[in-house]
């Protein structure tokens, strides 16, 4: 049973466009949602996170939109750059970042 789902599996955008990565979850107990960025050959790195009490979190070009009722969230990457090309993982956990459940990831390619 996959508790955290991500779509699309892969995404290609042009430099300057906004990339939208989607995530949904099943467990109502999840209240902390980190997004990780992973480059080939490296481990995932925390990019941005949100708590379920918020519906939006911004950090520079990265924004999370969160819909608790529908159990959905999305990561928007504005003004995409080729250096943003990576795999992005949505994760979820109850009670903080103690034991996150990961999605399968979205592979993003940004063409110059």
């Amino acid at each position, binding site marked *: 049973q996959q508790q955290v789902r991500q779509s699309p599996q892969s995404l290609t955008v042009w430099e300057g466009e906004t990339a939208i990565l989607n995530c949904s979850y099943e467990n109502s107990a999840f209240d902390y949602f980190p997004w990780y960025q992973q480059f080939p050959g490296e481990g995932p790195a925390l990019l941005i996170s949100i708590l379920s009490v918020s519906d939006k979190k911004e950090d520079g070009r990265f924004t999370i939109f969160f819909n608790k009722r529908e159990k959905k969230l999305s990561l928007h990457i504005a003004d995409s750059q080729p250096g943003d090309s990576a795999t992005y993982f949505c994760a979820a956990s109850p009670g903080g970042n*103690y034991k996150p459940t990961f999605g399968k990831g979205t592979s993003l390619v940004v063409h110059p």
Partner: protein
Amino acid sequence: GPKVLQIPSHQIIDMGQMVTLNCDPVSNHLYFYWYKQILGQQMEFLVNFYNGKVMEKSKLFKDQFSVERPDGSYFTLKIQPTALEDSAVYFCASSLLGQDTQYFGPGTRLLVL
């Protein structure tokens, strides 16, 4: 930023042998984690470790798995004996406190033949 190191980066062993995966966590961190990622699948939590003890483990953390961090040295994951289904990338992570940001290592790619 803070770096977590993992040694070795790749390991190939025969089924039934023992393997030890080593993790050098961020120096002042207190919580340590192992995750397993099979090719094409999501990364899955195996175990977390604090103050010399396993705090929580998942059903993937089989009896053949063990973790330890003797005297503040490497945080290790030992698999004895290994099975074919243990082939995966194993990621180590550490955090200062249990609720804090986890910093991941680059992973050890384990292939069991």
